[in-house]
């Protein structure tokens, strides 16, 4: 790699103070530090050695944890397409074709998200003279995974730019933001272009083909909600859904596996759990938030059962875990360390409340079939308040000690 290093050293003076391209220093710096860990050494005083970790490594670990969900999402996009158009109901039939359909839809979305967001990051870094933040490595992958495969690319670009600017850069970049950036992108799409991200038509890609008779593109959550309205037991409604296609699409096991319509990466609870395992094993995400998030959803499901005035409220609580994006949201969105609660006690409360709120929104609110997005954003806003009281408790303990 000597020639690369030489190349860098040769170009360096151009970008340094007094060089022709001085204004682009941070763009150069980002490229250089991506290729080579810098040669900075520790100061004269203070810690003389440093831990080998840095933010780049930390962030790439999150991306790695998302890969199972991504691969599954690509294949499932193709699978849902074949299912809806009646080409095959077999899971592993036409493997290559399904993969191709999925790749054709998902790859452009990822590329557009990374390109649009990366551009905004670079422009902000150059204008505001700070290093390019690694946070976008994760955001750029998260955004494609939480939107339907049918989302128009211009909407992906617009949402990404909106989220990076409004949710992050105006606050000062990664580490300073209040809201989860990827969730903000999704919320933007949800409220600005609801036609492309809600309803029964957007979750399955049909292309120029017609769907088979008896096919419904509804998600499990909207089926469950309608069952509640119609007074049909939810499990029955789920079981009888799309039987015409020769698949029990919304059985518990199938929903857990994730062979259902939904946003690209969110459908599979299993893949989210694999991601959770990676994140917890590497210590990157807080296991407290993940555990308390799932626990919160279950507890609220039980509470709903106790006061069941309609069939949706009477649904077995574990169904909440596998329907919609709860698992993905808790594992990848709620655990974002910057927008989550930052104290250890606060993390328990924060996760628990996200679980509570998700189920409350799902079951009681007719306008939003999925609750995790709003629950995470809402709790992002509340996290500093939770921390405030946890920190205050710490101060009070110190104060009481002094007066005793």
């Amino acid at each position: 790699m000597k020639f690369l290093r030489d190349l860098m050293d040769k170009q360096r003076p151009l970008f340094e103070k007094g060089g022709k391209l001085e204004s682009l220093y941070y763009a150069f710096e980002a490229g250089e530090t991506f290729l080579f860990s810098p040669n900075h050494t520790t100061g004269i005083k203070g810690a003389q050695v440093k831990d080998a970790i840095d933010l780049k490594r930390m962030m790439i670990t999150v991306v790695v944890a998302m890969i199972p969900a991504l691969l599954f999402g690509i294949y499932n996009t193709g699978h849902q397409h074949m299912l809806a158009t009646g080409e095959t109901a077999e899971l592993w039939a036409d493997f290559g074709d399904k993969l191709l359909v999925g790749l054709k839809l998902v790859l452009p979305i990822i590329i557009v998200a990374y390109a649009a967001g990366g551009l905004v990051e670079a422009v902000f870094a150059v204008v505001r003279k700070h290093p390019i933040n690694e946070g976008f490595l994760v955001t750029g992958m998260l955004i494609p995974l939480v939107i339907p495969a049918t989302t128009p690319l211009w909407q992906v670009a617009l949402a990404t730019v909106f989220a990076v600017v409004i949710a992050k850069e105006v606050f000062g970049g990664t580490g300073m933001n209040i809201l989860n950036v990827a969730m903000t992108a999704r919320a933007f799409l949800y409220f600005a272009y609801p036609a492309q991200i809600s309803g029964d038509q957007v979750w399955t890609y049909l292309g120029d083909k017609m769907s088979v008779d008896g096919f419904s593109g509804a998600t499990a959550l909207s089926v469950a909600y309608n069952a509640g309205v119609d007074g049909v037991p939810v499990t029955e409604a789920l079981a009888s859904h799309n039987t015409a296609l020769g698949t029990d699409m919304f059985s518990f096991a199938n929903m857990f596996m994730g062979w259902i319509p939904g946003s690209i990466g969110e459908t599979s609870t299993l893949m989210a759990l694999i991601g959770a395992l990676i994140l917890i094993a590497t210590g990157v995400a807080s296991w407290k938030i993940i555990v308390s998030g799932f626990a919160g959803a279950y507890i609220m499901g039980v509470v709903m059962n106790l006061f069941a005035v309609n069939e949706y409220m009477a649904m077995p609580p574990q169904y909440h875990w596998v329907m919609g994006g709860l698992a993905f949201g808790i594992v990848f969105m709620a655990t974002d360390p910057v927008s989550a609660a930052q104290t250890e006690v606060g993390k328990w409360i924060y996760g628990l409340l996200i679980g509570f709120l998700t189920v409350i929104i799902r079951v009681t609110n007719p306008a939003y079939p999925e609750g995790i997005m709003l629950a995470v954003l809402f709790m992002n806003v509340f996290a500093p308040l939770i921390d405030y009281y946890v920190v205050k408790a710490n101060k009070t303990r110190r104060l009481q000690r002094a007066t005793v």
Partner: protein
Amino acid sequence: MSKIVKLKKGFDINLAGKAKQKLANFAPAQTFAIKPTDFIGLQRPKVLVNEGDTVKAGTPILIDKALDQVVYAAPVSGEIVAVLRGEKRKLLEIRILADQSISYENQEKTDLNSLDRDALAAKLAASGVWPNIIQRPFGIVANPADTPKAIFISAFDSHPLAPDYGFALQGEEKYFQAGLDALAKLTSGKVHLNVDGSKSVPAIFSGAKGVEINQFSGPHPAGNVGVQIHHLDPINKGEIAWTVSPNGVVQIGKFILEGIYDASKVIAVTGSEVTNAAYVKTISGANVSTFVKGNLNSGHVRVISGNVLTGEKIALDGFLGFYHNQITVIPEGDYYEFLGWAKPTAKKLSYHRALGLLSFLNPKKEYVLDSNCRGEERAFVQTGVFESVTPMDILPVYLLKAIMAEDFDEMEELGIYEIVEEDLALCEFVDVSKHPVQELVRKGIELIQYS
């Protein structure tokens, strides 16, 4: 009541290059230096000697005009060869070329029973041993006029490659006890001697009388006196406690019993880059070149006075710091590494499992760490890490943010009085975002101290 405290939080940095328990016969150091920069809080240094003067061990050579009872004395006898000043005439070093055999300023021996507290404090302050006594909060040289609520001595050093006091203080039992007796007179409260609860305690400590012996065990920073104070008798606003290192206690004891300022001590020469890692008997402020030169594995090294967490980088012929009991030599890390952040590796040490996921398979492995920063400074992102290496009821990130914001109330409420740099040194090591944590802590302390 003596306490047994088991700490769980923390991290032991297992470095290669531990000192073998033997005294090496390196050539003795020729020059010695007093570095006013070693004494944090020394506000207005005034040099009492000129170049060319001859001094004895114990001759006052420096005072702080803001605290002029306390004398900083020459550690050896000889000739003042240089008074080094930096920018704005900031005093950097006073160098002494030592005599072949050291002669001492002889003062009368002290009878602790016949002296009252204030007279004892005044005598110690004028002797040269006083700067061993550190005041908490702030971590500055104590004021003889104060009466501390207690005095704390950590009898073990848990820093990486730290010297074993049981070995280094062999034969000093008499002086150690005399030092403890003197300290007991200076405080209105107790003298706490905190020993390592996970090992057998050396006789010098287990036989100590007139003190509370507490046991601490757990990973570093269990040996930090600040952590121990937090668990024994935490410092609140307005309170003052003193801390002394075991070497300092011995020096005080020697002054009490012999009437001389004997600054000699056994230090550890450690680190992956020295061929002969061992102990050596020398004197405070020694030039380290004779211990290091001809004792190196490689050419491109960093010599540290002290340990790798809290020490100070010095030149190959630099001087040992006043409070340091070891020197550590590690490779200098000023190199680029291709995709260094992404490559899987078992050579690098990390507290975080994102890099050291499988390190639990080989917990005894000794690592060679160099001085590379391993990344650039970023905003705080990861949470919960600092708390997991700080065995105190303190929220380090909130405290550091309060310091950055210069919010005085917040700093006080979050416990700035309870810490000095070394207590959060591990945070600086494990920080994903590479903040200069210790520098921030000192900035916060100075804000509070001079407000």
